[in-house]
């Protein structure tokens, strides 16, 4: 089943989601990478309201188009780098939806459960599919301070495809898959010993 998430992202929208569900995101989201997360973690003021907002781990490639901007490549970046900062940002700024790739850790999962937030994953490497879901680039903050890739870009998206990786109860999709793969590996290696060919 595919769920719709539309900005502002209320708890009513995120709480029914389960790890593994497909979602499509609509409305305003902000990009942020290492620099922004560190800045917010250290208590920096945010120039945009993050409450009920979405934060996309993405360093887009933007080009000037008239007075505005166009996203030419905008896939997710590895989220685990933000693990030291994420929980505090969820609790203190009220971010409700985080989007990235690769999975996040237990501190983020705990904060998701406390705040009713979710962590979504987009398909890594799908820079063109995801850029085509950006219907408008509203603006940019911190561009001169952090550089283009690390800046906070205000994006309006439609039909942006993602998957629930950590749900609002803190259930982490990757934990189950990772444990199952470790058990499968143990079986593959044990068989070899039993066969006596090792």
């Amino acid at each position: 089943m595919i769920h719709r998430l539309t900005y502002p992202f209320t708890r009513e929208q995120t709480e029914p989601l389960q790890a593994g569900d497909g979602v499509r995101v609509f409305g305003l989201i902000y990009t942020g990478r290492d620099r922004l997360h560190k800045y917010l973690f250290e208590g920096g003021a945010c120039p945009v309201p993050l409450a009920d907002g979405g934060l996309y781990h993405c360093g887009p490639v933007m080009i000037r188009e008239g007075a505005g901007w166009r996203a030419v490549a905008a896939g997710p970046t590895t989220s685990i780098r933000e693990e030291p900062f994420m929980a505090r940002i969820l609790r203190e700024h009220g971010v409700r939806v985080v989007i990235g790739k690769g999975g996040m850790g237990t501190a983020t999962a705990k904060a998701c459960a406390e705040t009713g937030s979710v962590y979504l994953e987009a398909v890594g490497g799908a820079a063109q599919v995801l850029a085509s879901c950006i219907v408008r680039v509203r603006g940019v903050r911190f561009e001169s301070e952090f550089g283009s890739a690390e800046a906070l870009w205000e994006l309006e998206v439609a039909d942006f495809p993602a998957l629930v990786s950590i749900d609002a109860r803190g259930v982490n999709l990757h934990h189950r898959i990772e444990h199952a793969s470790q058990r499968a590996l143990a079986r593959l290696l044990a068989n070899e010993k039993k066969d006596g060919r090792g």
Partner: protein
Amino acid sequence: MKQTDAWGASFLELIRRASTDLPVDVERRLRAMRRAEDPESRARWVFDTILENTALARAKSLPLCQDTGTPLFFLRTPRGTDHLHLEKAICSAVARATRKGWLRQNAIDSITGRAYADNLAPGLPSIHIEQAPVRQVEARLVLKGGGSENMGMQYSLPDDALDAGRDLEGVRRCILDALVRAQGRGCAPGLLGVCIGGDRSAGLLEAKRQFLRSLSDRSPDPALARLEARVSREAVELGIGPMGFGGRGTLMGVKIGSLARLPASFFVSVSYMCWSCRRQGFSARPDGTIARWFQP
């Protein structure tokens, strides 16, 4: 070779093709892997997105992935070729490709954290030129993303924790361990390049050279060919799936090479390439015009 030759234009087109289009064998493999997943599954959805992305990037001539990766150039040249001239042409093409958006500003000063404007920096682009018994220059480019590079491993055998000894069974244990550690984080389904032996630096470079091989080829060494086939089969059973979301499609393939080693050392070097396995190549006439594009 004069400044007016075609090398710069040929290398620029090589970068454009590598950044914006997947090799034929890679796209074919991804299609086959899509068919092996259950309809309505998460894995099928990932493969659909991957294939849609590939078609879009090709049609728009835009980067497949915003991480345009480390440019790894591998050249084989006939005797008497001016290597410095080729290196200069490659560097000017890299700078132009960066201005045109086929390469992101992807070279960061490791001390100051500042990005180089043109991707020309100590160690980048990574250029490997060797003389070879060839009649024309053969140039190949691999673009290797940073997320996948982070998933590489190097083992020193014997390894007690893995119960891996200095034999092919030990090598198998290393490869499967690297794959399970990576999960989907290197943008699975990946391609593993492996080198048995060498010193630490030669081993990892030889592992990356394996990415130049066609996905459908087999190692000329029968024992390595068997190991490649076996690990590819076993990867399905791990159930990691594309992007680590679960499924059959964990690995596009594994390519294993070897180098001699010292008696004291036995390294197994594993390099992880993401599904966006960007590699292209050409052979060129002495004036730098392209004679033909390689199509593995």
